[in-house]
């Protein structure tokens, strides 16, 4: 089929052609970026924390005698924490438990900036988690080097004291960042503001930080375990339930804690409180709520966009067919087959959407460039552009097909009919 007559016919419909091409271009640019963003959100949401997440839950509790350090001696507080832990670990539905300041994905970041020599400026961002000898087991972390904390290394520590533990366990990512030569185990690091070193005694394979959407996404895996019980009126118990007994353990743990101290506070979720007892699944869902919402919005907007564009092209093509009834009839009278007419409209549409797609590719990268400044995104990878081009061109062809089919059924008689 000759392209030339189609092109010259299009030149008589410059504006209509331009409008369709523009629509295709914008649609392509937005759709492939939306797909890319959705893919990124899902990637982010499916990162593994390094924890064995099933059967895990966390309890927030505050001693009623007050959020002031003066209310209760730190020895008494520490004793109550140890008492709570004994009670929790004794529960039949509970596998193990420990006390901490935070948990991966919990959005309670406790950060520090580390250095490897007392004379350096602090350079490596990390988030720390209070831990004891039960932590690795409770969380299901994988120790890949060195050893766990020993029970005798764990001490009480309040929120206000300086952070200078004698031993620490770090994530593999943090170990590599601090000691690129691979000699992290047994080496020393310094917390901010201290000159007393902390020795790395263990390395765990992977442990995500508390902030899923932090400002420090390059540090998502920079976690460090410190051998402290957090002696603070408000603290957190991380508990692993026995297989299949999560709900039972969550109930039993609450009852056990109230039995230990009837006046304690476990937020119940009323009056704008957060809920005090949350399963890890709930913590994870809250951590990625923003990403889920973004993915959902992108999906809905993309779907609307494709429908609007498809319907618009169908509407315009159908209008063109009506407008050219007489010319089509004439071509048919002069010997063109129905197939020729169908092809004519489909090729015309392909020409328009093809050139729109060219422009769309440029726009897609421009849009991607802007998105990169806003979200944690990389350069749009080419498969997304191909998928985008395929979707929009096929959509456009599909939208034009029904009107083109109708055109092909126009009888030669139409050429002489007035209407």
């Amino acid at each position, binding site marked *: 089929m000759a392209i030339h007559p189609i092109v010259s016919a299009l030149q008589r419909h410059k504006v209509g052609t331009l409008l369709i091409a523009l629509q295709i271009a914008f649609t392509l640019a937005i759709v492939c970026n939306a797909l890319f963003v959705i893919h990124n959100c899902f990637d982010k949401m499916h990162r593994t924390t390094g924890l064995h997440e099933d059967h895990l839950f966390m309890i927030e509790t505050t001693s009623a005698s*007050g959020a002031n350090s003066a209310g209760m001696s730190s020895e008494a507080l520490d004793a109550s924490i140890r008492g709570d832990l004994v009670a929790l670990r004794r529960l039949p539905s509970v596998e193990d438990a420990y006390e901490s300041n935070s948990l991966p994905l919990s959005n309670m970041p406790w950060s520090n900036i580390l250095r490897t020599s007392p004379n350096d*400026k602090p350079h490596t961002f990390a988030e720390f988690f209070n831990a004891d000898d039960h932590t690795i087991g409770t969380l299901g972390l994988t120790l890949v080097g060195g050893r766990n904390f020993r029970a005798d290394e764990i001490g009480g520590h309040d929120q206000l004291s300086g952070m200078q533990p004698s031993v620490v366990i770090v994530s593999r990512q943090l170990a590599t960042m601090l000691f690129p030569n691979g000699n992290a185990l047994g080496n020393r690091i310094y917390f901010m503001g201290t000159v007393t070193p902390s020795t790395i005694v263990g390395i765990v394979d992977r442990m995500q930080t508390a902030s899923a959407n932090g400002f420090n996404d390059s540090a998502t895996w920079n976690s460090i375990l410190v051998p402290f019980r957090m002696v603070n009126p*408000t603290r957190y118990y991380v508990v692993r339930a026995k297989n299949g007994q999560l709900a039972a353990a969550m109930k039993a743990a609450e009852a056990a804690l109230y039995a230990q101290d009837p006046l304690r506070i476990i937020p119940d979720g009323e009056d*704008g*409180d957060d809920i005090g007892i949350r399963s890890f699944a709930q913590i994870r869902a*809250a951590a990625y709520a923003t990403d889920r919402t973004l993915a959902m919005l992108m999906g809905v907007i993309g779907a609307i966009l494709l*429908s609007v564009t498809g319907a618009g092209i169908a509407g315009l093509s159908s209008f063109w067919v009506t407008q050219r009834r007489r010319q089509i009839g004439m071509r048919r009278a002069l010997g063109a087959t129905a197939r020729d007419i169908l092809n004519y409209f489909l090729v015309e549409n392909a020409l328009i959407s093809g050139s729109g797609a060219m422009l769309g590719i440029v726009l897609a990268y421009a849009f991607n460039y802007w998105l990169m400044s806003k979200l944690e995104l990389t350069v749009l990878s080419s498969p997304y552009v191909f998928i985008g081009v395929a979707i929009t061109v096929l959509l456009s062809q599909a939208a034009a097909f029904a009107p083109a089919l109708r055109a092909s059924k126009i009888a030669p008689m139409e050429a002489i009919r007035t209407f």
Partner: protein
Amino acid sequence: MFKYYLQLAARSLQRNAVLTALMVMAMGFGVASSMTTYSLFRAVSGDPIPWKSSKLFFPQIDASGPLHRRDADEPNDVLTYVDAVALMQDHRARLQTALYPIKPTVTTSKRQRAIPGHAVYREFFPMLDIAFSYGAGWSAAEDEHHAMVAVISKGLNQRLFGGTNSVGKTIQLNARTYTVVGVLADWHPRPKFYDLANVEAFGADDQVFIPFTTAIDQQMATAGGFGCSAPPRPGFAGTLTTTCYWIGYMVELDSAQEVEAYRAYLDHYARDQQSAGRFGWPPDNRLHDLQAWMTYEKVVPPPTKVSLVVALCLLLVCMVNTVGLLLAKFMTRYSDIAVRRAMGASRRAIAVQYCIESGVIGLVGGLLALALTWLGLSAMRHVLPTQIAILAHLDFSLLWQTLCLAITATVIAGLYPVWRATHASPFLQLKED
């Protein structure tokens, strides 16, 4: 004439019903997605105190020096106790307050609960123009004497005193007795702009305020961030004298001169500390106003901005779509136009008629958009945190903005088709028919 054109437009909606339906749907969906994402954006980016946001400032003072932070880092966004108290004592602005978040336990009839609150100076209340239901803030003397007084929120007053005037009555915070001096009227600042450095921007409302000096006296620990650039001396007293960052600070500066003077004062203060040997580095201070501070503290999540922009792009595509469809729709009417023109109608009259017609399409699209926006926001409420979800609702302003946007966008999309319609040659059209 306007009324007649409206009737004409309404009647012509039925002609080319498919084209009309397509346009109405396109504008409806385009406008609805824009308005849904816009209402989310509005919820998180709104100015919480528009009459004063350019006058509220948040100082930062580098109290640990460049050696204690990475090169790219800014000075800490909160102050040390030493600097905060020094600034309060110098009292260089008309109104200022040091503040930090607390979470005392309060005894209610049922059981105890920990409630969010802030330790502030008395100037906090007039500075933020906070209205009281009963009583008022405390006095400067009470600040000075570390008085056991409290201002409570309307909600807490409801819970503890059944909403009655509780001024003069007492409440138990951390098992100590405080006298209520004021009960706030409804006040739900979102974001919690006065302490963005320490608390979640869209966290729960504060329910209690006590004097800063009293909170320090009672050794109430901060419920916000806490970090030191040197190992703190032991106990609560130690955190007051070591370089530990945890105190928020806010000043009101009413004119450009006052801002400049305050900047100079901060530099002067830091230089004094330098010559006294406390700071071993030149002054490195910041003074952001509220808008800049909200940007610095990243109050608006980037995904919210991105969704809004993508939705606006969708609206643009819908408009392009509508241009094409209107062009087609008007083209079928060129012979009508030709007849009217031949009988003496001016181009202006034709233009007005067809603009009204696109406006009517926009209006119908707008009504569809309203329904869809309502649906969209209901869906959003399921996935958003409650504090933001409260803000994202279909109110009167969103209602008329939706209709206006739909009509304006459609009329703009109609400009070119209308221009084409008015410039179609009447002679040619008549002859062709």
